[in-house]
Every structure is written in structure tokens, then in C-alpha cells.
């Protein structure tokens, strides 16, 4: 790979953080980030409040129940511009001929987007605060759910980043990432699993997809407070593989 060189860990981290800061500031330099942050906050909080008043239980189950589909839609809105914009505006040549490794640019953009996922998560903090005032929620359960929020968000970010590297058109990137996200989420939905198992009785396609591919069972475990090693490996290995694939795509685009 062009650009393969040695670099000290400190220099690597410094360069990555400089890319991340620029990316985060570029995101908030346009009104789009504010619009979808507010939209996410309104949607997520109102869905929870509706369920909360219907059931009256002091937990965040209804919030985390709807979260995977919300993230599958909102995360691509964060990622669609990451590489597509760089390629369309031709700034990618400027960025990747600075003395940094492609991995620093990829990780910098990933970290900046993860920061935005953190902002989205923070917009829901009024919910646990309200629950703590009204009763005695299981804070461990809530913390585990937020861990799932960040891990699922990072997986969908990696999917979106790859989609963004594959196209110069942000809309195409958005649609591709949304499809990828929904596939990862819905393949674990019991109704989808039942339908797929029904159409392929010998293969048990739905069950196999849910067990080996889907993010939903792992996320649901975390939302229930169950932190399995397999879930952590899944949420670290799959994004890492997707980011590595992104680097290959960028390298292919270059040559």
C-alpha cells in the first residue's frame, strides 16, 4: 500500500485526533447535524414517553427497544458525507497527501462520528434522570443499554463509512448504509427469522442469520443487562473488519 511507513504511537494518536477535531467541527459548521440531532431527540424521547405513560414501568426498555431501527436510519445521515464529500470535492487528495497514514484519516473520521453518536445518546439523558426522580430504576441495566447504544452505533458507523467510501454520491451512500443497517438489525427480528425459516425449512436461514450475522440479538442482550464476551467480540471485530475494508476501497479508488 502506498503510504506504508512507521510512525510512533504518539504521533499516530495526535494525527488521528487532529483529523477527528476537524471532522467534528466541519459537522457542526453546517445546520444538518443540528437538524438530525434535534429530530433524533424528539423522536426517541417522544416514543419513550408514549410507552412510559401507557405501561408506567420505571425502565428504559421501550427506548432501547426502538433504538436499533432509529440508529439504522439516523447513523447513515452522519456517515454519508464522510468520504463521499471528500471524493466529490476532491479534498481527499489533499488530505491523503498530508503526512498521515490512511488509517489515521479513517479512525479520525470514525472517532468524530462516534462523538456525534455520543451527542445523540446525551439527548436521551433526560429519560434516566426523570426515571431516577420518579422511582428507583436499575442503573446497571441502563448503563448496559447505553453501552449497547454506543456499540451498535459504532457498528452502523463502520457500515456507513464503507458505504460512503464506495460512492461519490451522498444519497447513494445514505441509502446503501441504511439498507446495510436495516439488514443487520432486522435479520435478528423474530418475525423476519420466522419468515426466512419458513421459506427455507431445510436451511433454517433466518435462525442462522440471526445467530451468526445479526446485531440485534447482541444488542438486546446488552439492553437486558447481559454483557456477553461474544457480543463484545462481535461489536469490535465487525466494525474493525469494515474499517479495514474501507481502507482497501480508498486504496483502490486512489490507484
Amino acid at each position, binding site marked *: 500500500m502506498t503510504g506504508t511507513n512507521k510512525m510512533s504511537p504518539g504521533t499516530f494518536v495526535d494525527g488521528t485526533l487532529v483529523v477527528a477535531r476537524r471532522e467534528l467541527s*466541519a459537522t457542526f459548521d453546517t445546520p444538518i447535524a443540528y437538524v438530525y440531532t434535534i429530530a433524533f431527540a424528539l423522536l426517541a424521547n417522544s416514543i419513550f414517553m408514549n410507552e412510559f405513560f401507557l405501561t408506567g414501568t420505571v425502565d428504559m426498555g421501550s427506548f432501547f427497544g426502538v433504538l436499533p431501527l432509529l440508529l439504522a436510519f439516523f447513523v447513515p445521515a452522519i456517515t454519508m458525507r464522510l468520504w463521499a464529500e471528500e471524493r466529490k470535492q476532491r479534498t481527499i487528495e489533499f488530505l491523503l497527501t*498530508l503526512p498521515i497514514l490512511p488509517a489515521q484519516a479513517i479512525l479520525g473520521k470514525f472517532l468524530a462520528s462516534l462523538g456525534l453518536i455520543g451527542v445523540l445518546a446525551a439527548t436521551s439523558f433526560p429519560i434516566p434522570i426523570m426515571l431516577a426522580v420518579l422511582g428507583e430504576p436499575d442503573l446497571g441495566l441502563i448503563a448496559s443499554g447505553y453501552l449497547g447504544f454506543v456499540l451498535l452505533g459504532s457498528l452502523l458507523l463502520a457500515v456507513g463509512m464503507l458505504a460512503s467510501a464506495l460512492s461519490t454520491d451522498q444519497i447513494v451512500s445514505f441509502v446503501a448504509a441504511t439498507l446495510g443497517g436495516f439488514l443487520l438489525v432486522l435479520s435478528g427480528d423474530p418475525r423476519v427469522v420466522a419468515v426466512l425459516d419458513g421459506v427455507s425449512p431445510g436451511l433454517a436461514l433466518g435462525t442462522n442469520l440471526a445467530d451468526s450475522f445479526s446485531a440485534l440479538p447482541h444488542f438486546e442482550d446488552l439492553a437486558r443487562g447481559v454483557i456477553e464476551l461474544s457480543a463484545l467480540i462481535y461489536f469490535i471485530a465487525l466494525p474493525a473488519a469494515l474499517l479495514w475494508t474501507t481502507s482497501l476501497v480508498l486504496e483502490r479508488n486512489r490507484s
Partner: protein
Amino acid sequence: MIRVEQATKHYGATVAVDAVSFTIGAGEIVGFLGPNGAGKSTLLKMVSTWLPPTSGKITVAGHDVETEALAVRRSLGYLPEHNALYEVMRVDRFLHFVARMRGLQGAQITERIDWAVGTCALEAVTGKRISECSKGYRQRIGLAAALLHDPAVLLLDEPTHGLDPLQAVAFLDFVRELSAERAILFSSHVLSEVTAVSERLLIINHGRLLADTPVAEFKQRASDSGGTLDDAVLDVVRSDARARGGASA
């Protein structure tokens, strides 16, 4: 400072650059001339480490572009064709970003940004977004970014593209001032610009290097033939076109 040996670039079956070789030393400013699509930008992209050569060897300040890309990038300032910049960023923040990416630290950052802003006359636009700046300012912002780390080698790809004639003259004067200690490779398809600034011309067409000749020699040829400098330079391309026509016939 720049050594290109048999550099070749293929895009599928198309040969964009065909076994080109030349060297450029410190203090030299060399014009890179050729029609649109001749292979100028492809070659500059290879020297800048953006494109890997299909074959051949390119070194910048002694570093190989393929195996020591980071060292090459540290040694050179590159103003790519189209000079794409981050439109939504403010000029001062953009320069700060580039300085940090270049590894500058602490007071060095302020010192070098102040120098680049002064040298490229950007004082009036430092607080503006790049998208609000005129084409002339944008070229100078790109050049300021390329100069921030005081590189030994400068690659300028069509740097006067989009500038009005007065801006182009001012820009070329500025480039000439920069050449004292640097190796500068300056590409253009505007003949008068290249001959005005450069000491030596590289002429490329259909990916092949047709000439690596001092401007003084072209002036001598023009004087001997009673023609213009432009004619003397264009004769090289015309001869190649005739030879190609003959070869294809």
C-alpha cells in the same frame, strides 16, 4: 531533490505516463508543459505519493514515494490541480489544521501561520470561510498550506488556473521568489507562464517526455530560426505529432 526514473503509469490499457525520467535539484524551478491530458497531473500525483507508479522509481529528497511515503510528504508542499480546499472552514482554522497535520507544535504553529499569511498576503481573509474567498485568494490559501512547513520541494499543478491575468502575473512573481532554496516543479498548459518563470522545461505529450531542455536553449533556437520562443517550444510537440502521424500511417 526530485528524481524520476522510468516512471510509468497505466490505467487499464491506457498508458498515462510512459517511462519518464528527469531530475530537479535544489534552487531549480522547472516548468512542466504539455497539452491537456498529456500526463502532467498524473506524474505530479505520483511524485506527491497520491498515485502509485505502475513501474519505475521516484524519490523526493532521497525518499522513495512508495516505501517512504510519509517522509516524502513531509518534504514536499503540494498544490494539487483544482486546489480543492475544505470550503466550510475558516481560513485561519484551515491553516491551523494543516499545521497540526504537518506536525508543527506550540509557538511554531503561530509563527509559521503568521509567516504564511504574511507571505501569501492573506491578512484580509483569515477570519472568512474559504467558500467566501475569491479564486485568487483560494490559490494563495492553497499555496500557504503547501508552504506552512517550509518544504524543500514544491509541486504546483496548474496553479494559475482560474486566475485573471493580473493575479496570474503576481502569483508567478511570487513563485519565482520562492525558488531560491527549493526545488519547484510547476505544471501548466499556458506556455508564456512556464517560460516566464522556469529555468528549464519538461515537455510531455501522450505520456512521453519529449524534452528536458533549458529555456535559454529554446530562446537560442528561436533566435536562430527567427521565430518566437513559443514556436521553438511548440516545434517539439509538432515534431512528435508528425512522428506519431507517420508511425500510425
